[in-house]
């Protein structure tokens, strides 16, 4: 379980997150919606120790995450999957995946996780020795998710998994996320794509201008007029 309370994040002169509090229950899928540039990615990065400067509290079970370096947080089982993928472009798929298991926590399970990941994404198994930079957008996205899974995490923070994908690939990615969740993974996901994502979510937050403006179940979200207005233009 992750419990965020009173989180503030700064980027240069900008105050990006203002007093954000939220909870992600174990084995849940929490979706954070919000317009671009309102702090969604920063929220995920703050949890994973990748933000520039933060104040407040982030508790993973009983461990305080604020102030820890990203490598310690990965070792605690919290992994970030970037919207921009952040792969290692001149390495092969296999090397990228092996580096996904770089943290001490994942090393003993490297072979096991590799098998699991190839089951989940058979296409990656076919392209094991292909260089990452030559992959298509959809495959690269899968590789990014697969690399995240290699870290043997309990908690995944996934940043806009559907961004820039064709509809059929998007469905594939969502199904994968669903499968991962069913296997016991806790997921915090950031998205703009509300109708699809609502099927996955156990809980929804809306982040606008760095503040949480809505919190509730997916039914609450769908029936909320304000949300309809901003996300669907109705």
């Amino acid at each position: 379980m992750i419990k965020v309370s009173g989180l503030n994040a700064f980027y240069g002169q900008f105050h990006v997150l203002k007093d954000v509090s939220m909870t992600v229950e174990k084995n849940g899928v929490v979706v954070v919606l919000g317009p671009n540039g309102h702090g969604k990615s920063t929220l995920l990065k703050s949890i994973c120790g990748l933000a520039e400067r933060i104040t407040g509290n982030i508790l993973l079970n009983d461990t305080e995450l604020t102030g820890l370096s990203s490598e310690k947080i990965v070792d605690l089982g919290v992994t970030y999957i970037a919207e921009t993928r952040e792969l290692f472009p001149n390495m092969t798929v296999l090397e990228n995946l092996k580096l996904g298991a770089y943290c001490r926590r994942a090393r003993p399970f490297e072979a096991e996780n590799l098998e699991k990941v190839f089951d989940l994404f058979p296409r990656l198994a076919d392209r094991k020795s292909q260089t990452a930079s030559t992959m298509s957008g959809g495959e690269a996205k899968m590789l990014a998710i697969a690399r995240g899974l290699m870290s043997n995490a309990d908690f995944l923070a996934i940043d806009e998994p559907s961004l820039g994908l064709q509809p059929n690939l998007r469905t594939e990615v969502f199904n994968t996320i669903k499968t991962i969740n069913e296997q016991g993974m806790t997921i915090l996901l950031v998205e703009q794509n509300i109708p699809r994502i609502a099927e996955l979510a156990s809980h929804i937050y809306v982040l606008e201008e760095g503040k949480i403006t809505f919190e509730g179940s997916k039914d609450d979200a769908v029936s909320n007029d304000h949300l309809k207005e901003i996300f669907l233009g109705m």
Partner: protein
Amino acid sequence: MFDENTILVFYEITDIIIAGLSNGSVYALMAIGMTLVYGVTKAFNFAYGDFFNMGGYFAWILIVGIGLEFGGYITVFLIVLPLLFAVGYGLETFMIAPLRKRPDWENRVMMLTLGLALFLSNLYMVLFGSRLKSLPPILEGILEIGQIVFSYQDIMIFVMSLGGILLFGWMLNNTRTGMAVRAVAQNPEGAKIVGINIKRIFASTFAISTVMVGFGGILLSQKMFINPTSGGAIMIKAWVITAFGGMGSIRGGLYAAFIIGMMEAFVGWIFGMSYTIIALFVLLLATLIIRPQGLMGKGA
């Protein structure tokens, strides 16, 4: 068939080629160390050449200063290389890492390392005097193949530097730390995401490059003198080779090192040694104008 003069010139040329090869192999070591540190940490180290001399002086202290007998050069390597590693690691951790927070840190690192270069070269001058020092050859004797004479020293220098490069290349591709170093070079943000401690990789990379150039210093100082003020020229040489070979390309650096080793030997033979730096500079300008990404570089 040939008159005596032609034969003499032929021997001279083979000597120059051998010198070019053994110097070139050390240059390759230096260039790869530089490509590595710039490719991974993006810090430009102006004191690079002074670490070359540091290797030479450390070895000189052990062999000539203390008169170490036991184990010869093996002991020297076992003592000096870890020492150089520590120096490089400390430098990155305590001096360069704090600067990274500033937006113009790259320029400040250049200034800092330039200051360090001045400090070190003048320190060498104070400690060892301006008289040039030299190291005994790692292996004495010569090898004759037909009419051509190789000194064992040249052969050892060639073998050891190439061995060092191969070992380094193997580690980069096959060890966990080597993979992490490549990962940081390709995508530091991605490296952080997978849980690589990039500060430690920066420091290790800096340390490894210091070891490589210092190792080169120990090897080459057996043939040439250790000159306290030569650091700048050595740094420039390593950098020209790196730029010529292509930034970030280890293979390019390897080829470039041998080409430049040869070029230098021939320019020195034809025009005199003081023109080698001018030749290097002309080559650098030509590279930057004609093919800025270097021989094997991938471009911007």
